[in-house]
């Protein structure tokens, strides 16, 4: 599992990367009430806003963690956005393939992320 400074987790299985947000991020957001997912097949650029996530408090975005293509989205979140708070490690947002897999090597591992987020 790898982590970004935007509080996303990335799980790479044979080149298909599953992306969600961390428990720390879910707690900071508060109760999630709406999730707008990208379309499957969308070509994305790292840093692009591709998911809208709204909590009772505010709207925010999830950014594409890498260059690549969206291959699958978690439709369950559209109907039950609260899953993000219940189990953020299981509530994935989308799966993607990437043209820059080497960038994941530079991302934080779990210990580094805990230090980064202050949840150590």
């Amino acid at each position, binding site marked *: 599992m790898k982590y970004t400074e935007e509080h996303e987790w990335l799980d790479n299985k044979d080149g298909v990367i599953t992306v969600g947000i961390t428990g720390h991020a879910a707690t900071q957001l*508060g*109760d999630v*009430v*709406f999730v*707008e997912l990208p379309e499957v097949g969308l070509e994305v650029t790292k840093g692009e806003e591709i998911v*809208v996530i*709204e909590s*009772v*408090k505010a709207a925010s975005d999830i950014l594409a963690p890498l260059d690549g293509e969206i291959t699958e989205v978690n439709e369950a979140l*559209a109907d039950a956005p609260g899953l993000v708070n219940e189990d953020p490690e299981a509530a994935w947002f989308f799966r993607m393939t990437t043209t820059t897999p080497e960038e994941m090597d530079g991302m934080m591992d779990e210990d580094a992320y805990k230090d980064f987020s202050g949840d150590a």
Partner: protein
Amino acid sequence: MRDDIDLLPLPLDALHRALGAKMVPFAGYSMPVQYPAGVMAEHLHTRSQAGLFDVSHMGQVLLRGPDAAAAAERLIPVDLVGLAQGRQRYGMLTLPEGGVADDLMAARRGDELYLVVNGAMKQADLALLKHGLPDHEVILLEDRALLALQGPEAEAALAALVPMVATMRFMDVATAPWRGADLWISRSGYTGEDGFEISLPADAAEAFARALLDDDRVLPIGLGARDSLRLEAGMPLYGQDLTPETTPVEADLGWAIQKVRRGGGARAGGFPGAEVILSQLTAGAPRRRVGLVPDGRAPMRAGVALYESETSTTPIGSVTSGGFGPSVGGPISMGYVPAECRQGTTLYGDLRGRRLPVRVTDLPFHTPRYKR
């Protein structure tokens, strides 16, 4: 990290932090936005049992001097002369162009008038009151805290400490002692639930709050849930839904202006903006504050522009408050639309570049349960 160096702490600051509140800047104070339960749970708890809110940032003002109620009618377009002892009513300070300078609660306290005004506006309100009433004393009570206890169990929880509150009706005000502290209690609130607002000496506030929180039915509630509760109850928030650019009639607050202050009434007019406001009361206002229910799940928050169709280029209104209504179970908003947009009209809100349908509806979204 502390970025609230310049913020004033409220009397209950230590208690909020001990309860695990997330503190944010609001109206110049450091205020609890939520506790560990979270906004959704806090909101639902207030609707099902009782929530305790610290609203000590609000301005508590005494108006003292000859015929204080009659004098205040020069600035406030509601019937204050006819307001009985032991009763309070909702009102607003108006501006010469007919806009609203602030909204408030006014209660008779003997010969004095006791006003509760918005925290962010209290200094401006004081200036306005002092300027408009030069022969009266205008006193900001800085040594009193203000708590609100709201919800169906509020009466039982408060009566356990102060039994007399069980006899109060909606909008009654009364005083009562508690362990030597002088409580000023009103049966009112800002959530659409039955409940009370309790003004008390700042140095007694923590002990009193802890006594209420010792009751299992009572949870502390932050600003986040206060906002979603009042939104469901259809109540305007000053600075968003109510501003110097909105008249009371446009804001759908005409009900607050009694007949005696309207055209033909014994004390008609005589307040700032009377010409505009009284004429709108008879002829109608060009736009009005309404409820808005977006299709689907996406909340439409303050600032979303409203269009007549999916393709029209000029907005005809805008959202002034919006979010998710936990008791409604979906997104709700309020905003201003042209008067001819009746209930059921579909408009289109511009959300991140897309036009999404939103239905005009009457307020409130949640029917209040007051004890009349």
